[in-house]
């Protein structure tokens, strides 16, 4: 049968929907054929794994050599509580740690801050000082584990604490491996965890890049994150475009700060969301790798191929979990995990089924981890590289997303770059509009969410919930009080003064922060010291 004939015939068939589009609203054709990728050249546009432009994967043999790192994000209550959970997860075969901090810590506030009231240990672990960090990693040898810390405005302080914990375990900073998120741009755009205005924030980031390239060379200094952009409601394309543009902005900043691009770019890593639309997500990861490689080589003139590699962590989409019929979340998460793996992720977090209610219970967290282990050890999907490469649909989606991203880059450049576009509310507006139109699509039932707007059930789900006792806050506060009594207050004040001075002199902040940390200055004390110099950020209001 000829192509045209088939298309004619297919038009006569009745369709079950009037609209077929991805979860991001991109229309999907009834069939993809070689015509859809006619312009594509294999060697130029796909290449081989571990080779430019890295569409098929960043390493030569990908999961045949080493599986992705199974890295479950966790933290709650006191450092002691979380330390126990870490040991439990490591005991069940988890291969990396990922620290979730509570809100006060994320905002650089101590547990006794008035703003912290009611929030201590609730959404993550409370860390006030080096003392807490020592407890958090007690009995966990830092040379044998890689640790990711989801921390942004106070990233420098938490990294410093980690380094000092290493010192106390006799492990030199040179061999520490791990990641700090340290991606402030997406905070202003989507996640909204900020302390200082964008400019001083960018300066702190440059200081970290510079310091680590010298002293903590194996550390991933920024995890450029699309995850939160997506959670805030963006489409897949927006997630891709905004995240990469943020990445390039950090590169430009590093270069402007006088660093050679190949010195820090290999330490940049990424963090993406894995959302509902199976194929669109896979195409997104593939497109991201190609864009990064091309731009790093062509625009930023990186020479070291390691600068071209877009290595990324993935987390399944928290915003797709439902409170209704929570067990369904296990299945949802499994599909999302599969698309991350088919997309070639370097590490993965799978959400637990109970996370719309609270932090996961031990059991739920274990099922989430097992989901990954099933994929890795049973399903066979990790036996060959990029198994969907060459699919007309996947390749066509990959191309489309890449082109769409370039269009966004142009738009952002016209606005004067990322920082200026944040100030104008460009990202915030784009994201909240997408969020609203998705919500409307759900309510008009042009998009479905099982258990929410289709196949609903009346009965309430009974599942076990992890409760954080208000006792945690009391314990943290009294520990903090004790710490302040026991440490050498005079030396703390001295070191804080020197930090302030470094901030105003433009000296690299990292060594000063390390000094403060060693004297057990609290996180809040350090952040407040910098606030005096840098001021605080106020959001522009955009709908």
């Amino acid at each position, binding site marked *: 049968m000829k192509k045209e004939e088939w298309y004619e015939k297919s038009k006569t068939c009745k369709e079950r929907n009037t609209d077929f589009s991805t979860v991001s609203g991109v229309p999907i054709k009834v069939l993809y054929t070689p015509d859809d990728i006619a312009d594509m050249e294999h060697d130029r546009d796909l290449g081989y794994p571990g080779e430019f432009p890295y569409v098929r994967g960043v390493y030569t043999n990908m999961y045949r050599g080493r599986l992705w790192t199974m890295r479950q994000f966790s933290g709650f209550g006191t450092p002691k509580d979380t330390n126990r959970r870490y040991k439990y997860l490591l005991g069940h075969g988890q291969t990396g740690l990922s620290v979730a901090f509570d809100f006060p810590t994320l905002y650089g506030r101590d547990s006794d801050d008035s703003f912290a009231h009611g929030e201590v240990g609730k959404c993550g672990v409370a860390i006030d000082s080096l003392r807490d960090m020592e407890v958090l990693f007690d009995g966990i040898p830092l040379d044998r584990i890689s640790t990711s810390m989801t921390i942004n405005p106070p990233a420098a302080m938490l990294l410093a604490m980690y380094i000092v914990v290493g010192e106390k375990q006799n492990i030199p900073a040179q061999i520490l491996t791990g990641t700090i998120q340290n991606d402030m741009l997406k905070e202003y755009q989507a996640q909204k965890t900020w302390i200082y*205005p964008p400019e001083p924030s960018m300066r702190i980031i440059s200081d970290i890049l510079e310091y680590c390239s010298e002293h903590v060379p194996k550390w991933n200094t920024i995890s450029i994150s699309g995850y939160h952009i997506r959670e805030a409601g963006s489409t897949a394309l927006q997630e891709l475009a905004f995240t990469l543009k943020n990445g390039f902005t950090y590169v430009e900043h590093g270069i402007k700060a006088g660093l050679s691009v190949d010195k820090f770019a290999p330490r940049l890593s990424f963090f993406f969301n894995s959302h509902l639309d199976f194929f669109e997500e896979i195409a997104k990861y593939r497109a991201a790798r190609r864009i990064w490689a091309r731009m790093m080589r062509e625009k930023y003139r990186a020479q070291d191929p390691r600068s071209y590699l877009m290595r990324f962590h993935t987390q399944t989409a928290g915003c797709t979990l439902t409170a209704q019929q929570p067990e369904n979340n296990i299945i949802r998460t499994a599909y999302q995990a599969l698309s991350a793996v088919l997309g070639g992720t370097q590490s993965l977090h799978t959400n637990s089924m109970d996370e719309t209610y609270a932090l996961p219970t031990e059991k739920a967290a274990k099922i989430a981890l097992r989901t990954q282990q099933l994929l890795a050890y049973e399903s066979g999907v990790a036996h060959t590289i990029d198994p969907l490469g060459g699919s007309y649909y996947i390749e066509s989606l990959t191309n489309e997303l890449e082109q769409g991203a370039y269009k966004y880059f142009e738009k952002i450049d016209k606005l004067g770059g990322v920082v200026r576009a944040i100030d104008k509310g460009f990202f915030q507006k784009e994201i909240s509009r997408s969020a609203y139109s998705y919500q409307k699509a759900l309510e008009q039932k042009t998009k479905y969410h099982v258990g929410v707007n289709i196949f609903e059930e009346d009965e309430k789900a009974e599942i076990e919930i992890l409760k954080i006792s208000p006792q945690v806050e009391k314990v943290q506060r009294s520990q903090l009080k004790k710490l302040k009594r026991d440490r050498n207050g005079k030396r703390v004040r001295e070191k804080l003064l020197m930090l302030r001075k470094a901030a105003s002199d433009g000296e690299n902040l990292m060594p000063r922060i390390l000094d403060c940390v060693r004297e057990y200055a609290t996180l809040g004390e350090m952040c407040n010291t910098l606030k005096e110099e840098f001021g605080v950020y*106020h*959001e522009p*209001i955009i*709908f």
Partner: protein
Amino acid sequence: MKGRQRETVKGIRALLAGEKRTIARIISAVESEDSEEILEHIFPHSGSAYHVGITGPPGAGKSTLVSAIAKRLLGKRKKVGIIAVDPSSPFSGGALLGDRVRMTDLALDENVFIRSMASRGSLGGLAQATKDVALVLDAAGMDYILIETIGVGQVELDIAQVCDTTVVVLVPESGDSIQAMKAGLLEIADIMVVNKGDREGCERLLTELKFAFEMREQKVGWDYPILKTTATEDEGVEELVVAIESHASYLSKTGRLEDERKKKLLLRIHELIEKRIRFHLKENIMPERDIIKLLDKMYERKLNPYRIAGQIARRIIRLADRRFV
């Protein structure tokens, strides 16, 4: 009737004492219903607040600037009322009012009252409603009333003209002074401000504005200041407050303050008469439903609107003559 009067009097007393819940309640009443009775009671207690309008294009940083001005005034132990006007959605009639976000530092100050207002679609009515709300705040003992509007249309210009001093805010990239001129913003400005003065293009905009103002006919004795501020850094705000104060003292010294305020009262009388007559006409003299009955015939071209309007108008005038002459 007595019960209601007693309630109103009680309300007025609380208002005069600056009781915030009552102020808020009365503003709602004034905003949403026929409230002349309340306003009658309030009017004698007003007249001491100084009204400053702050207007400019979206994104000019008006709220931040208003907040910074208010802080300065509070530092001088003044009481400050803020009215932030934003457009209602023409489709739903709803509105998203986010100006308070920029004013969080002020929110808990005892001497501040902030009120967000939506335009509620009633074009002509908005300026009036704003005036009425300002009247309430005036009677509640505010020394200054800052009225923030988006300067994009005639309505906003009208609101700006409620004020004793009008500050027009531009930013370097809102571009062009040309747009502002087209919108008529420059003509209503007593003080021009270029905010976000740390931005590229600021100096050029300042020069353009200076040129534009030289072209503008100068009112005697008032040299239009063109100021540069960076509201987020609190830079240039003191100068702006000084400029507002000196405009105020210029107005009162030259007697213009009284003249202008009398003019505004005259205008107010006109508006109120028109409002009453319009209401009376619609309800009693030429009820809409009677005219609607004629629409079919007009549509078929058997009657024409010109003649009908003429007839109704003549009838109204005859009625009026009989009553008033």
